[in-house]
């Protein structure tokens, strides 16, 4: 009897029975949410089946090698640069005491406040003929020899210097929590500072570093503005070229699919590598950081090393923008900028709120569904970050217009009036697109903090008779709110800076600072873009400084 029972325990029939039993509202809600997130990707992905466009062969023959070569070059150069800058600076500020350390801690995050295409414009402006550098050198009577930044190495530099804070933030979080104990243990074993760092800290910090690195690489692969201005052909410029210049969405989709598989490959590679070494997570916080005080000379060296990226990634570009802003202030600035800033802020705020909510819902619904496969599938929700903004925008339009046509028919039949488009062309579509695009930015920090809460804590709440939702608000939420807040601020920052998607989907009358900056810059009025750019930086700076205080605490 018993034997018979267990033999077909995993027969299709029994599995279906259990599936029916275990299918709860959480599983369904997770799938519904995922469906919404995946809808734009799917509506574009369908085009994969219709075969590549007629120019696919042309691209394969003339351009693909260039795209792959340049994109990989950027991935490796930027990857190397952001890891080097991010890890070294975070290590220095967590391990050593030196003048202005506290200020540098948040200054190091600020490069994130400047959109990378703006950094590209300002560097080009500095190093240009008649640029700021030449003017300064002239004052000192020095000869100007031009440094050409408008090539792929220059692009890698610009992207690296404006994106390294992602790695800085994630590795610093690890160092703040773990490094002290580990270093003490290592030193007890008679291993020196430098060797301990490379042998012990670096391998252990790898997951944290890689988490930041993956965000950087997705941004790098996604960059359009800077690459185009510098004349570097990458996958993303190629996607734009085939979609728009050659009017072949099919080919663009093929390129996007290739791009996504590169990103996916990178993620899998990392996962596979990491699987070999499982680190147990030391959950108890460390007993405060003890920073080393070193000799004045060494302090000087450390200060220089930390100031340099701040200077290159933030102060210099901002100085250039201020100079341009000063030149163009009279012609450009008007009170309408206040409304513009207000709108940007409102949209970013709302989007961040929704994105964070969706990320939380996805993480917790899949967890509550108690299905492991769902938990893994939920992670796919973050892939939108790998898709270029313009492609996401088109992907959003296809289904929303479809729904709209349908809605319009209903409204027409019911009320005999002709409504315009209902969803597309409104803020709903725009925010929907932002959510799809930036879910990863919210997902990762929230998931990371959620993992630090032992499962038994929400479990005991359930056992005490409190349902999932109430448990979340009473127990999980207070415990993960730092993660939620950082997610919120990161999304907010990204939305304020976002460009291609906003351009395509923004409703009439709505405008953002980034769009305004682009309108000037795209028509070779780079200098005039300075004022809106400075406003972007200002809007983003305060939340970032706040974020820093949150993370250090």
């Amino acid at each position, binding site marked *: 009897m018993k034997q018979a029972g267990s033999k077909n325990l995993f027969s299709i029939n029994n599995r279906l029975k259990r599936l029916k039993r275990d299918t709860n509202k959480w599983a369904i809600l997770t799938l519904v949410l995922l469906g919404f997130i995946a809808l734009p990707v799917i509506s574009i992905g369908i085009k994969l089946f219709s075969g590549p466009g007629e*120019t696919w062969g*042309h691209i394969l023959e*003339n*351009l693909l090698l260039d795209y792959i070569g340049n994109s990989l070059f950027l991935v490796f150069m930027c990857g190397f640069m952001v890891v080097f800058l991010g890890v070294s600076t975070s290590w220095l500020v967590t391990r050593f005491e030196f003048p202005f350390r506290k200020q540098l801690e948040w200054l190091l995050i600020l490069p994130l406040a400047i959109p990378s295409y703006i950094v590209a414009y300002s560097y*080009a402006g500095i190093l*240009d*003929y*008649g*640029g700021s550098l030449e*003017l300064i050198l002239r004052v000192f009577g020095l000869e100007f020899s*031009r440094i*050409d930044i*408008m*090539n792929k190495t220059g692009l890698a530099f610009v992207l690296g210097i404006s994106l390294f804070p992602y790695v800085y933030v994630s590795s610093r979080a690890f160092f703040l929590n773990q490094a002290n104990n580990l270093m003490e243990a290592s030193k007890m074993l008679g291993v020196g500072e430098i060797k301990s760092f490379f042998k012990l800290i670096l391998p252990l910090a790898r997951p944290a570093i890689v988490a930041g690195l993956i965000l950087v690489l997705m941004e790098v692969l996604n960059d359009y503005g800077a690459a*185009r*201005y*510098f*004349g570097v*052909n990458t996958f993303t410029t190629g996607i*734009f*070229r085939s*979609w*728009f*210049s*050659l*009017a072949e*969405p099919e080919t663009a989709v093929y390129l996007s699919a290739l791009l996504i598989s590169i990103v996916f490959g990178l993620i899998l590679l990392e996962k596979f590598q990491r699987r070999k070494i499982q680190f147990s997570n030391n959950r108890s916080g460390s007993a405060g950081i003890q920073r080393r005080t070193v000799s004045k000379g060494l302090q000087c060296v450390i200060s220089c090393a930390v100031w340099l990226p701040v200077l290159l990634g933030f102060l210099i570009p901002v100085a250039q923008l201020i100079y*341009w802003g000063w*030149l163009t202030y009279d*012609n450009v600035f008007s009170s309408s900028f206040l409304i513009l800033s207000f*709108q940007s*802020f*409102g*949209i970013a*705020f*709302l989007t961040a709120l929704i994105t964070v909510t969706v990320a939380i819902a996805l993480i917790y619904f899949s967890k509550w569904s108690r299905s492991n496969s769902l938990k893994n599938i939920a992670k796919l929700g973050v892939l939108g970050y790998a898709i270029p903004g313009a492609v996401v925008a*088109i992907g959003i*339009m296809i289904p929303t*217009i479809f729904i*709209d*046509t349908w809605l319009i028919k209903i409204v027409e039949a019911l009320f005999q009036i*002709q*409504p*315009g*488009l*209902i969803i*597309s*062309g*409104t*803020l709903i579509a725009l925010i929907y697109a932002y959510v799809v695009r930036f879910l990863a930015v919210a997902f990762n920090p929230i998931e990371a903090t959620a993992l630090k809460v032992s499962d038994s804590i929400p479990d005991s709440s359930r056992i005490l008779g409190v349902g999932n939702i109430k448990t979340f608000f009473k127990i999980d939420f207070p415990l993960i709110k730092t993660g939620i807040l950082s997610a919120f601020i990161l999304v907010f920052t990204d939305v304020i800076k976002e460009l291609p998607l906003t*351009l*395509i989907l923004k*409703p*009439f*009358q*709505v405008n953002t600072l980034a769009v305004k900056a682009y*309108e000037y810059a*795209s028509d*070779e009025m780079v200098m*005039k873009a300075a004022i809106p750019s400075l406003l972007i930086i200002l809007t983003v700076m305060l939340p970032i400084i706040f974020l820093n205080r949150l993370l250090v605490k």
Partner: protein
Amino acid sequence: MKQLIFLIALLGFSACKNNTEKTGSSSQEQANVVNVYTHRHYSSDQELFDLFEKNTGIQVNVINASADELIQKMKIEGAHSPADVLITVDAGRLTRAKELNLLQPVNSELLKKTIAPHLRDPEDYWFGLTKRARILVYAKDRMEEANLSTYEDLAGEKWKGKILIRSSGNIYNQSLLASLIVNNGEAGAKKWAQAIVNNMARAPKGNDRDQVKALVAGEGEVAVVNTYYIGNMLNSESPEEVKAAKAIGVFFPNQKGRGAHINISGAGVARYAPNRENAIHLIEFLISREAQEIFANTNYEYPVNPEVQPAALLQSWGEFREDSLLLSKLGENNKNAVMIFDEAGWK
């Protein structure tokens, strides 16, 4: 504090929302609005839209993006697209929009009378608003104007390592090559593109202004740029740009033959325009004397209205012969041009 921020955001959102609802509902009532999808983002345009609003009471709603993206948007929006007018900065994109069935013909005597036939669609689907010529510039202190003659001449050996021109992703270059395809055939155009790539002073990068600055700094001997950028540079806020622009000479090529390559910035009425009449009004307004004066003087473009004189600066460059090629041909050959660029290795 948190509540306050939230409240502000909420208010901001509801304000935006009200706006969109207003436009959404008003468009169906055929109220006084006109929805413009435009690639032009010049201050002159905003000035003109404001003026139009003041004159007619018709509210102008604007979406700014690249023409390619706007065309995709209209294509997907289909019959329910709110777009009334599509404005681009080249004829090629308008032709594409027409081919994709996104525009409708407009029967307006005023438009036909004012705009020269080669500057508008033969079937009246779109109309030029302003002209710009793609010309050659050189450093006055280093070179004689006499060295320059035609676009075709740039392919010659003597220009090796001396030509400055931006990347092939740029629509002005694509249109220039399209005009060469029409005039010299595909094979000739391809040979030309390859020769230019060989003659380039550096890999293509930056925008037209950057080419001028590189020219003045001595990186090359001749640069290919659009006329209105020179005008804008001469009136730039940056003293360095003004200095650079003053150091160069302007040359209109092919004057002994077909004339300098020109392109237009133009407009068409969307196929499903909910406010068709207003759309036509707007286009007619944009070619009126009043409007053309503003185009000419704030953005240094050549007016299409023959009654209006170009800006004084442009007049100082003298009259020139312009290629009278039907501009719709540029659109027909655009894709071809892009592919030739790729094959020639023009980045």
